[in-house]
Structures are given as C-alpha cells and as structure tokens.
C-alpha cells in the first residue's frame, strides 16, 4: 500500500476512533446515538476498504441502521420518563 491510498484509510481510521470516543463519552444521550450511527456507517466503509462487502452490508443495515433505531427509541422512552418524574 503506497502513498495515495494510505491517506484516506488513515483518515477513516482516525474518524472511526473519534466517533467511537464521542459515542462513549458524550454526556447527552441523543448526540451519543448520532455518533454511534456515524461510527457504524464509517465502519461499513472500513469493511469495504478491507474488501469485505458482505460484512459492510450487514454493518450498515444492522449495526448502524437498526441498532441506531433501537437506541433512538430507547432514548425517546428514557426522555419521556424523565419528564414524568422531575
């Protein structure tokens, strides 16, 4: 792997680590879920770069899409509960 293809891959790796860190350490739940979904999409790209399109498809559909939707639903439910009991 020489010069040119390496740069986007490095950027992808750094972006993965950044979104993973923000997803774990963001205090507010909703932005954390957004970072988690962004992490999932970037991970799907990483799988494509590793020439594993099957895993990339599964990651995009299940990891980012459905898990993101599940987490969003959980956040919405938690928020409703907080408002009920101040």
């Amino acid at each position, binding site marked *: 792997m020489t010069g040119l293809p390496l740069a986007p891959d490095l950027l992808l790796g750094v972006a993965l680590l950044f979104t993973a860190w923000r997803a774990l350490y963001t205090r507010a739940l909703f932005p954390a879920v957004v970072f988690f979904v962004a992490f999932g999409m970037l991970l799907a790209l990483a799988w494509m770069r590793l020439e594993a*399109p*099957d895993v*990339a*498809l*599964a990651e995009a*559909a*299940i990891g980012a*899409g*459905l898990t993101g*939707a*599940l987490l969003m*639903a959980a956040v919405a*439910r938690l928020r*409703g*509960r907080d408002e009920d009991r101040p």
Partner: protein
Amino acid sequence: MKRLASAALAVMLAGLAVVLAWTVTRPVAPGRDVPALIAGSLDASGVSHPVTAVLLNFRGYDTLLELVVLLIALAGVRCLAPLPPPRGSAPVGGVLRELASLLLPVLVLVAVYLLWAGATRPGGAFQGGALLAAAGILALLAGRDRFLWRLEHLLWPLAGLGVAVFLAVAAGTLSAGGVLLGLPPAHAGTLILVIEGFALLSIAVTLVALFLGTGELEDREP
C-alpha cells in the same frame, strides 16, 4: 480507587488486543487452505458467491442457530411486554408521510433484491431482512401502523417460520439418507433460496417486534 480500576481495565484491554492480534495472524485451519477448499466445492453448493455458500450450505448449522438466537431474543422481550396496539393515523408531519410513501416500495424492492443477489454477489437474508425491518419501522414512525393488528396474532408463526423451514429442510436431507443440512447439489440452489426467503420474513418480523419492544414496560412500574 477509580484510577486503579481504570488502569486495571487498560491492562486487560491491552492484553486482549495482543491476544486478538496473535489470533488474527494465525492460520484459520492449520495445514488446510480454506479459501481453496471453498472455491473447489463451490460448484456443489448451489450458489456462486462463496460467502453465501459458507453461510447457507457448508456451515448452515451456524446460520440456523443464529435464527434461533433471534427467536430467543424476541421471546425475552415479549416476556417483558406485549406489542403496543396501533395508534391509528398518528398526527405526523407531511414530509415524513410523503417520504414514507415514496421509500416504502423502494425498501421492499431492495430487500427482495438483496435476497436474490445473495446467490451471486454480496447480499442475503440477514441484510435483506434488516432492510425490510427498516421499512416496517419507517411505516410505524409514519403512522401507518395498522399492520400491528395482524402482527399481534401472527407474530409467533411469522417469527418462527424461518427456523421451521430451516429445520424442515434439515430433517428432509437427514431422512433422504444424507447428513443434516447436507444439501443435495442438484437442488441446493432452490433450497437455499427457499430457506433464505422465509428467513428474510422471520428476521424482518423479529426485528420490528424487537423495535416495538418494551412498549408497555413503563406502565407496569409502580
């Protein structure tokens, strides 16, 4: 104390990383060229995409158990809460409603395409099922949730259909004198498509039901 725990966790994670790195560099099956083995027996698998051949034919047992795991997860969630009743036409914005009516047919079409494409290129039941589930969730969010009335009664038949068909095929191959899930090469392609078709439906229904999940959980708390 907290710093000590963090340090211990860091050491453990570093150890895990080392073990993982070591595992990755080791051959999968020592002394056997697995990619060549798969490529060599691809003709007998009924499909031309090696990943689908492994998932649905050579290691079909693993995929069957994956479907069972999904079913058990659904059983766990259903123990906690019933499906919520439909809210009817919920007041949702015009954009979401229009977007849903545009996207729903496309999502269903792409899900079926992914299933069909799985035979020759990346795709398959899990990816297609996840997409079909996304269509279901979009329909729910857009207030088109009348299908919940039917889902309430048909949940277990639909969710269990994938495993049932898979088991029926397994029993069939066993009683036909073969081994468990040893698909006969002449019919392997058709059998894989049938298994994946029902698995797609079950996966989609299960994932939508998991999303609906603990709808009534809050009401049960004191």
